[in-house]
């Protein structure tokens, strides 16, 4: 992305510009937040960002929900990147910057856009690296298990705190897509439109298996120390390996082949060693190293587990997805991507079909793409067009 990283010098009219996250306390030690697991947690602080102006009728709220490694910094440039120890944000704008901004598909001239970091993550919302009030030390693995439903209930609590009764639209991809799905099932009266990208009603066994190998490499890292590593060397090798593996599942055979082929790093000479000989190996190394700079290994464990456990049918239909879909009152746009093998089109389609069987109109689109699961972030033109049209008020 060739953009001037300093919007002060060269203001980009299609950027939300400098952003400043806010933190809000949504539960205290005395009135903790109740979780699906039966455990409670308090205090709970949530970091969120917002762009655009709330309308007088408070009817223009677009809630964006982020994926596994995402955060509340959706668009623009973080004003406090350096001070908050998130120096990597100086290099690039928020994770969905091409789609969110003035005049963009999610138009901040028109909508009040809100995104909150999920519980258990490591970007300002309470998570395993936060201080456990009972010990005065970071939670580590003493942090309670969290679920997609917990996240949605906490987001609803954020809206309550901000005085927002309804959201015009909730939008998310991947694990964010599952949160958008959960919103439309759990809080049908509060959502007008729901946009679910590259997400199915539950992760396949193959997806769980990938997550499992990622967790295995983290908990077996010599530095893991039962999750208690915050004052010493971090389990970076395990976390990097988890990210490298996961990253492969975000691409497709076609996109990896097209990008790297079998090209070697060293002028096409075999080094006969076991370092990064192929370009694709260097790329994965880079992905892994980049990730450990900005992510917490414990958060990775908690969030992938939430991803494994999510099952829309089990939660809302006693195992019957059609029954679950009878709850839906919002308009739903579901988009899958042809080469996505983490949330394959056939699995995404199941939700749309269940909605049809439940007598709920639905828009389901299978977008042709060679970018695999990443397509929901990469295919900004195709996705942007759909978002723009779907968000448009028709009456």
């Amino acid at each position, binding site marked *: 992305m060739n953009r001037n990283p300093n919007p002060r010098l060269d203001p980009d009219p299609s950027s939300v510009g400098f952003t400043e996250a806010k933190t809000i306390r949504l539960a205290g030690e005395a009135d903790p937040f109740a979780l699906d697991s039966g455990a409670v947690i308090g205090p709970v602080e949530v970091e969120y960002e917002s762009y655009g102006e709330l309308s007088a009728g408070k009817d223009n709220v677009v809630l964006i929900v982020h994926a596994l490694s995402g955060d509340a910094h959706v668009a623009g440039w973080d004003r406090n990147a350096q001070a908050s120890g998130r120096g990597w944000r100086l290099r690039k704008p928020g994770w969905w910057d091409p789609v969110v901004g003035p005049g963009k598909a999610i138009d901040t001239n028109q909508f009040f856009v809100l995104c909150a970091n999920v519980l258990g993550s490591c970007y300002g919302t309470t998570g395993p690296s936060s201080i456990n009030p009972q010990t005065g030390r970071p939670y580590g693995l003493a942090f309670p298990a969290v679920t997609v439903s917990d996240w949605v209930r906490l987001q609803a609590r954020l809206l309550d705190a901000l005085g927002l009764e309804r959201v015009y639209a909730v939008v998310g991809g991947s694990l964010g897509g599952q949160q958008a799905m959960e919103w439309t099932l759990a809080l049908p009266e509060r959502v007008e439109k729901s946009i679910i990208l590259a997400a199915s009603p539950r992760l396949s066994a193959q997806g769980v298996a990938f997550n499992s190998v990622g967790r295995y490499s983290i908990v077996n890292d010599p530095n893991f120390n039962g999750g208690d590593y915050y004052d010493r060397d971090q389990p970076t090798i395990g976390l990097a390996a988890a990210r490298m593996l996961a990253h492969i599942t975000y691409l497709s055979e076609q996109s990896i082949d097209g990008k790297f082929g079998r090209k070697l790093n060293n002028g096409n000479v075999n080094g006969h060693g076991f370092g990064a000989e192929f370009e694709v190996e260097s790329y994965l190394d880079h992905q892994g190293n980049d990730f450990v700079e900005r992510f917490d290994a414990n958060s990775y464990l908690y969030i992938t587990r939430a991803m494994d456990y999510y099952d829309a049918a089990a939660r809302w239909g006693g195992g019957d997805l*059609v029954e679950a879909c009878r709850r839906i009152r919002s*308009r739903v*746009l579901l988009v899958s991507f042809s080469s996505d093998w983490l949330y394959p089109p056939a699995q995404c*389609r199941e939700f*749309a*079909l269940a909605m*049809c*069987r439940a*007598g709920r*109109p*639905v*828009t*389901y*689109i*299978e*977008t*042709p793409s060679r970018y695999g699961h990443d397509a929901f972030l990469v295919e900004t033109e195709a996705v942007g*067009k*759909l978002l723009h*049209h*779907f968000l*448009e008020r*028709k009456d």
Partner: protein
Amino acid sequence: MDDKNPGAASAPATTPRVPRWQDAIIEREIPAGSSVLDLGCGSGELLSRLIRNQGVRGQGVELDPAAVVECVARGVPVFHIDLDRGLTGFADRSFDYVIMEETLQTLRRPLEILQEMLRVGRHGIVSFPNFAYWKLRFELAASGRMPVTESLPHRWYDSPNIHLFTLEDFLDWARERGVMVRQGWSLVEGEVRPLGPHDNLQAEEVLLFTEME
């Protein structure tokens, strides 16, 4: 125009479709508040009017990606799927009306979809070009080549119409399967009129409202 033909990849879906004569009748005959499934709904013009003007619960099905985007722009719920994969996702009798305008002849397995149509819908509305129309018969007889007309504008090699049939062919099938044609209209020399006894010869296109006996 063939933007309603799911297989017609060459047809530019962005070209506004001339309203079909069938649309006016469908809009007139479908009671307000019905539920309607439109198979091969194209850019969603008909459904959009039915939803807006008659308060129907509408669902479109379309294969052409550009047409699907136009449906979204119109606010028409659309399922992007190949009809030849069947309608297995839809429950029995889950719609009052299932519409299939000018699509049947483009499908690989037309009979399966017809049956599915009458499983999923209480009424099936189907329209198609009648290949026994006298002008087609004449042209075929006189020139010895596949006829090219206004309602069948393609040549043999670029036609999305892979299963051409006649009104009588359809009525034979209906009789065999216990399908009742409740009402019908035909396009005869540019005029729309109720289905007549000689329409296998006279009708260029037909529109039939069917249901299981």
